């Protein structure tokens, strides 16, 4: 479903902005090796064909912000053909944060789902 109405796009954008940090943290934590930005963006795109995620360019500032708060670590390695690449891997603190955020997400999801099903009116 690709939202075309302006208010739908706004809703989608706000939802994505709220979950981007959790999604990125999870993607990086599951990788067996450090990943660079393009790989992460590709992986997210592949898994979100029905859900329009945010623009790939908007993922990078989130990665930097996660690094700045100590949840991700990064190293820069030169590449043969282009500019150097920044490889991200999850930090210890990041794993702890991911567990906590997953719990928060599940609570939130459960709450929204139950509101949508209307259990509060029974």
């Amino acid at each position, binding site marked *: 479903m690709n939202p075309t109405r302006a208010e739908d796009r706004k809703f989608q954008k706000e939802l994505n902005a709220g979950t981007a940090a959790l999604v990125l943290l999870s993607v990086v934590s599951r990788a067996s090796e450090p990943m*660079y*930005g*393009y790989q992460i*963006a590709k992986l997210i*795109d592949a898994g979100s064909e029905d859900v329009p995620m*945010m*623009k*790939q*360019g*908007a993922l*990078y*500032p*989130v990665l*930097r*912000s996660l690094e*700045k*708060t100590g949840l991700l670590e990064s190293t*820069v390695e030169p*590449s043969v*053909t*282009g*500019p*150097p*690449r*920044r490889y991200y891997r999850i930090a210890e603190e990041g794993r702890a944060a991911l567990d906590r955020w997953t719990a928060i997400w599940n609570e939130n999801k459960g709450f929204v789902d139950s509101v949508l099903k209307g259990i509060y009116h029974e």
Partner: protein
Amino acid sequence: MNRAIDDYLVKLKTALAGADNATIQDALSDAEEHLTTALEQALAQEPGLAAEAALGTIIETYGAPAEVAAAYKEMENMTPTALAIPGLRITRPRGNRFFGVLGDIRTYGSLLYMLLSLATGIFYFTWATTGLSLSAGLIILIIGLPFTAAFLLSARGIALIEGRIIEGVLGERMPRRGTFFRRDLGWWGGFKALVGDRTTWSAILYMILQLPLGILYFTVTITLIALSLSLIAMPILHYVFNFPIVQMEHHAYYLPGWSMPLVVMGGFFLAIVTLHVARGLGRLHARYAKKLLVKEGK
């Protein structure tokens, strides 16, 4: 490298106008890395593909310059700058601006920087003057140009490292990645761009000026610290170690006993003044370093 990528980077830079110069540099590096990698892989999968057409799709999914710029600006507003970690600001000075300096974490960072600057100043100065004179001397030989290029690149690297130190201890936002150079220029074009870039030369100027500045910072700070500590310790020096204030030939002069509380208070006062001086110098130096080490946004 591709013309269209360069065009995109220029547009992104324009869209980022008003953001912190260091953020601009980060955003440009990210975009350059992503677009180049994406184009490379697209061409590897479909060798016959026209680069222009492939880039259109790639840029479409990466986001328009304005969108990407907005994401960086938003993140910049949300991310605390170095040392401004919320937990550390609990001791926010209340009312009294004079004693407030004691609770400001940047004071101690500045103090550290003032003491460190003599060592880094000597190193930077030696590196810059040696590099400049060897470059000038070797220019008539074949190895002259590669040597000059290596030296100029090293100056930019040192500028980046100095920026990291300044962000860490003085708290001024500085670049986290090097500046981007167009990659379609070739060896000679790249060299000309390096020589023609204002930041290359202002970084070298910074390295040279860092020696006199470092000597000044170090001397002023050490003198003030020593003076305040000796004033605070005056009663102990007088009565425990019998250490006079002035000694000439066979005459030793001591301060009268009633003046001791005043002297000690004066010592504490001077210590706090020292912290103000260190923090003030640190702020000035951070602003000055940003002018010389960071490329100006348009």
